[in-house]
């Protein structure tokens, strides 16, 4: 379990990190908390020639409410974000997602943005981010740009980032009062990877649901939005029948892969059960806030 050789670079600012990435090229990777990248390197599944450490760049460390949304800087630690009052107020689905990821010591080290940029389709934070919606801020030597959460995830460990770009932060969009969320994952043991997860938000102003978001993790190459399920929910009363129908639609046409934790068919089953249960939890929370 020894990493291949690599060269370590420390960036003092976002601009310096972008400069280093541009200079070092495709063989360079950003190092933030290192909770995904370093194990992959030690298993020799990843072998970047250069690591650019951004955890000493003050302009990447921030986190907090920002213009109605929640801004999370690229080096903000998961545990910090998880426990902040503004996270719980603005993006409780993200707080739930973080609390399910790894163990507390891991979350003290790992970063939210790092997990999102790593784009593991079975990970918690990408799914929660996509479910609530927001934007990714990317910076390259040529300047910055914003990428919608909906467009960010392109495949297994693959994002819309271009060579030489790093994510400097993400902003999670706020949902209005009357929103409830549900985040449920299934893992065989408390410490093992989730083999399927469901992140949902529903909003109602009393009575029928008027806005819904359903995203599955662990069942496809990206965190997977389920528009058919959302269509069933919008306009429906928050009933057991509606949630069952939406859950069925969410899992209807997915074709998850099999691995040692479970078959594709089992993941499909889990997607349905977890979505049903997550929607039930979301409705209880929405009701409480309405």
């Amino acid at each position, binding site marked *: 379990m020894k*990493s*291949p050789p690599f060269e370590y670079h420390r960036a003092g600012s976002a601009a310096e990190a972008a400069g280093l990435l541009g200079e070092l090229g495709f063989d360079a990777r950003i190092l933030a908390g290192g909770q995904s990248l370093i194990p992959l390197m030690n298993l*020799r599944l990843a072998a970047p020639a250069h690591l650019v450490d951004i955890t000493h760049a003050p302009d990447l460390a921030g986190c907090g409410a920002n213009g109605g949304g929640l801004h999370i800087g690229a080096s903000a630690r998961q545990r910090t974000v998880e426990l902040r009052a503004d996270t719980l107020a603005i993006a409780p689905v993200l707080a739930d997602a973080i609390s399910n990821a790894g163990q507390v010591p891991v979350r003290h080290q790992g970063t939210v943005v790092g997990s999102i940029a790593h784009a593991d389709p079975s990970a918690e934070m990408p799914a929660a981010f996509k479910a609530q919606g927001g934007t990714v801020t990317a910076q390259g030597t040529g300047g910055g740009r914003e990428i919608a959460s909906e467009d960010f995830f392109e495949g297994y460990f693959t994002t819309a980032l271009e060579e030489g770009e790093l994510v400097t932060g993400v902003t999670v969009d706020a949902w209005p009062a009357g929103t409830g969320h549900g985040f449920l994952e*299934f893992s*065989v*043991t408390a410490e*093992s990877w989730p083999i399927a997860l469901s992140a949902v938000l529903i909003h109602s102003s009393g009575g029928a649901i008027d806005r819904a978001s359903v995203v599955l993790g662990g069942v496809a190459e990206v965190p997977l939005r389920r528009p058919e399920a959302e269509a069933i929910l919008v306009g429906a009363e928050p009933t057991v029948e509606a949630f069952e129908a939406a859950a069925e639609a969410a899992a209807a046409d997915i074709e998850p892969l099999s691995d*040692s*934790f*479970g078959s594709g068919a089992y993941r499909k089953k889990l997607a349905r059960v977890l979505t049903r249960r997550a929607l039930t939890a979301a409705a209880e929370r929405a009701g409480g806030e309405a």
Partner: protein
Amino acid sequence: MSGSTGSAGPTPAAARYVGQSVARLEDPRLLTGGGRYVANRTPPGTGHVAFARSTRARARITRLDVTAAAALDGVWAIWTAADLNGDVGSLRGSLVLPGGGGPPDHLLADGDVRFVGDPVAVIVAASPAAAADAVELIEIDYDDQAPVLDFETAAGRDDLVHPELGSNLSNSAEAWPPEVDEAMAGADTSVQAVITQNRQANAPMETRGLLAEWRAFDETLDVWISTQSPHETALAAARTLGLAVHQVRVHMGDVGGAFGQKVFLGREEFAVMVCARRLGRPVRWIEGRSENLTSSNHARRDRADVSLGATADGRFVAATIDHLEDNGAYSNGGSPGNGTMACVHLPGPYRIADVGWRTATVYTNTCGRGAYRGPWQIESVARELIVDMLARELDIDPLELRRRNVLRAGDLPHNTATGLTYDRISPSECLDQVAEMIDYDGYRASQRESRAAIGHAVAPNGGPPDAGTLPGIGLAVYVEPSAIGFGALATEGATVRVEPDGSVNVYAGTGSHGQSLETTMAQIVADALGVHPGDVRFHQGHGTPYGFGTGGSRSAVIAGGAARAASAGVRAKLLRIAAELMEASPDDLDLGGGAVSVRGTPARRMTVAQVAQAAYMRPDALPDDVSGGLEHTARFKAPPVTYSNAAHACTCEVDVATGAVRLLRYAVSEDCGVMINPMVVKGQIAGGVVQGIGGALLEEMAYDSDGNPLTTTLAEYLVPSAAEVPAIEYGHVVTPSDTPGGHKGTGEGGAIGSVPCVFNAVADALAPLSVRLTAGPLSPDRIRAAIVAASG
């Protein structure tokens, strides 16, 4: 050192510390990061070893090129079979000597590879990272052959794991008298099942590892190794390297678990020693986690075709087992497997007049089989599962069915149909105690209510049930053959020495790797010598009397017997000397609190330190027939087997929609005779139970259809954490053994009883859905699939 047997002193030692939960003497060190393992030792100039391993399950090597790797900076040596295999003799463990059949002795893969992980080349480099870098530069081309992966069909295959042997069948045995079939045919009811157990890994916290240092100036080899058996290490190293045993010094520090994996040396460990001798410098190998999971040893891959016949009122009349086990390619120590041991224990704690058994062991192109905590435990899995199946068939409660058949005090001594003789066991008492602990009757009553309450909710629309939580309770009862003392395993030796200052050193041939021997052996010696356990220091490894080491639940009985005998000899001498010095009769002396005193005259006393000082420094003051010094070496010979027994009970709930199992309570009633240290007994039970929970629910070393391991890290090979394990409750029944001290072994029982106990609890939960579970692990996916299948 004096004679080989110890006699009890004039006044018998009082059990002051034996029986107490003395705080572990090793804990301050281990709990503050002061433990010292092989990886803590890096002498200057150490070479670090990595192995290049086969990525194919069965293939000819058509090209092997180490040129690029050898040119890498920091690489000191790369050797393959052509270089090294001639340096060694037999690689067998001392219990399976040359001529006993088995696969060829390939230190490194020679011409072909026989499982994914088969070591092909060894690299010694300036750092572990450089060695790992070199592995990636070794070029190997293979001509793939069809691998033998399915152990159930391996024996009939023309493709051979070991072409030298002409067959994939390693060995077989049977004892199936015709009257067994007659008895089974005459039974009112019989049930059959094919039970397959999941391939598991020992997965110790500390992987294998050793540091070997060849000293050319006096031609000796020092080995620091993570081991259960320093003497087996020395014997095997000497035999394999062509040395005398006195040229080999084996040192052991702390060991982070083994569970059977570290009794016998593996090919890698021999290779490291060979490298050290060739290079004349310290060479160290610390096995990686993935290597440990894929290349050290696997266990438990068994199939049992089991049947149980009974009268209409549930009296067992006959049982049979047709057992098959997967030995992998190169078994640990060259072991021919555990089949006979498993089969003869099939009757377990029950009266069964007729028992037939048959066993076969086969080779496959997978990681070799090795001992794992209760290596024969398929007998308990098969028996306890089939008992529950019979209970359901007869509609008799599983506890009641066991009570009708379990051995009672009046049945002892009991000769099993398989030729074992049990005595001084208490399965009936343990069963009753555990039923009380878990409130069995109360649980059944509440279970009936909750089953009625969820009734219709679990099966809507005629489809598979999709909601609700089902409660279940499971039992398992077993008799554990502890302290197996046949042949070379029969004895252990110990030396007890009181030093001139009164402090005590104990030297034993054991290999404690978590069993707390540092404390328990000190308790035994402290009682004999009237000192505090903290005054006693325990030593293992080089310089200790020969012993087989620690494994097979043997140390309490056999090593404990040796420590007891050795310290009794010292006690007798200490009292003789004290009597002489104080002009009293040895019979009038009391020994305790670190001092000897004349009974009735407490002012006439000497400390143990004063007596010891005289023993060494004032030889002229000693009795004429007493030599100087204060030490004794003794060897204890144990009975062939010392049986312990236990009953387990647990409760669970199963989430019907996801198949997830949550264990709620776990209770164990154990009879390990007189406990040296009840806290240590609890620890042994807890560790074993947790491993069995893993074996029942989580752990499976999986291969794909090409023979590639799929579970290569602890992210995929799932072991239980605190979150998966309920608080374990302990009950004790104490039936002393007929060995000195009355102890019995209890190292493995937890891992034996827990697999069938958990299985039975889950099956009980799912009984209303007519789900039948016969293959582990009971993963959520597998349970859910079984629920769906049963509803179709």
